[in-house]
């Protein structure tokens, strides 16, 4: 007599049903993932806004409190920095004319150049360098739209669009690579192109700069519009440590990104711009 027929295993069907329910659950979540995520973001948005501001204020307060013990040292540092800045002012006056191009970039009226949609960050994922903004497909947002602040500093581009929210991939994301132009102090130098590659943890490096070109500290990086995603002239960062190695085919450099997550309460999505 077959004992398996008389005493059927009761656990196996339960496990199979459990797996089926689980797969069905995951499948349903993925099928309606935009709606689910939009729903959760909608529910948590008011709290996220409050906590984001509270975190900003708390970190500022804590930062100031921690610095009290270091005031004397900081004073010396400021004095030294002041002298450096005085020297820098003199240098800047000398190259004022040459910097005209950069000035135009910075001082140009945003609204005249781009069609903008005002937004604000309500959540930050600094593990993967994404921010969540409170504008979505209902507001006409599309993937790949650039996100900047009022000083034309590039934050990143829209990565994923939900009904009322969007995820923005910061330029520091490991998945982010963008073509840049290196803004030199003088206008007679040949144009230098490179690529800014995200390194994660809110940092990025400059790469793919020809070995024949000279780059130095404080050179400004702006978008070149070669790839067609970003309009040209958006500020990205400045070079802090050039690294020229003749064994490598290209120059690289450490850079300091201009975007500041503490100033992410007023951002703009560029919904349209003139392609030159």
């Amino acid at each position, binding site marked *: 007599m077959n004992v398996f027929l008389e005493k059927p295993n009761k656990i196996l069907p339960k496990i199979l049903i459990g797996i089926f329910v689980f797969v069905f659950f995951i499948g349903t979540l993925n099928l309606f993932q935009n709606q689910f995520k939009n729903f959760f973001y909608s529910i948590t948005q008011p709290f996220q*806004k409050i906590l984001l501001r*509270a*975190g900003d204020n*708390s970190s500022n307060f804590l930062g100031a409190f921690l610095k009290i013990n270091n005031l004397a040292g900081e004073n010396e540092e400021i004095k030294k920095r002041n002298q450096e800045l005085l020297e820098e002012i003199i240098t800047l006056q000398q190259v004022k004319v040459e910097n005209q191009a950069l000035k135009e970039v910075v001082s140009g009226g945003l609204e005249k150049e781009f069609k903008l949609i005002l937004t604000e960050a309500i959540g930050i994922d600094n*593990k993967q360098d994404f921010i969540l903004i409170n504008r979505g497909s209902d507001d006409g947002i599309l993937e790949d739209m650039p996100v900047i602040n009022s000083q034309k500093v590039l934050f990143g581009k829209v990565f994923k669009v939900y009904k009322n929210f969007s995820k923005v991939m910061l330029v520091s994301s490991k998945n982010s690579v963008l073509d840049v132009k290196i803004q030199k102090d003088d206008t007679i130098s040949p144009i230098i192109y490179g690529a800014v590659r995200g390194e994660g943890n809110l940092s990025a490096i400059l790469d793919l700069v020809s070995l024949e070109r000279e780059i130095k500290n404080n050179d400004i990086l702006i978008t070149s519009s070669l790839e067609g995603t970003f309009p040209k002239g958006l500020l990205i960062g400045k070079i802090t440590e050039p690294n020229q190695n003749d064994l490598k085919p290209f120059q690289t450099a450490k850079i300091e990104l201009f975007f500041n*997550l503490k100033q992410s309460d007023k951002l703009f999505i560029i919904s349209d711009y003139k392609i030159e």
Partner: protein
Amino acid sequence: MWLKLVVLFLLFVFLATFQISFLVHFNIAGTTPNLIFILFFLIVFFSGRSKSTMNFKNIFLPSVFAGLFLDIFYFPYFGLAIVLLLVMAYILKYVLFLLKKTRNEYPVVYFIPLFVLFFIFFNIFLTTAMPCFNWVFLIEIMYNLIFALLGFYIFKTFKLYEF
């Protein structure tokens, strides 16, 4: 039981919100504590020696909740974090079973290495880019471990063994 699970669900909602809004301003070298993962680990760790094999309310549902919120706030698709946390939960349960502690003792010497190991495991599988084993990742581990230890002593002090 169900009331506790609702509370746990809401706790995950709060921690997820807190993590992506408040804590980002306290990042060290761009890293912040992953409170969702820490709570998940604490729950599984402290329920790791119960006899039930499936342990639906102590392991399965907390893992699904934690994975769900990680998927909502961090990942493009649902399922990846849920499945990974479920696998990790049952591996952790098995590891604790192998340690053969019969009494309700939860020594910190087990907790620290297991947390670090599972945190690395979690990051290897769930980050879109492979984590670099550099000093930033080391800082991230230490930063998370501090919060995890804080949670560990809260769990021990208030005897939150069986959720």
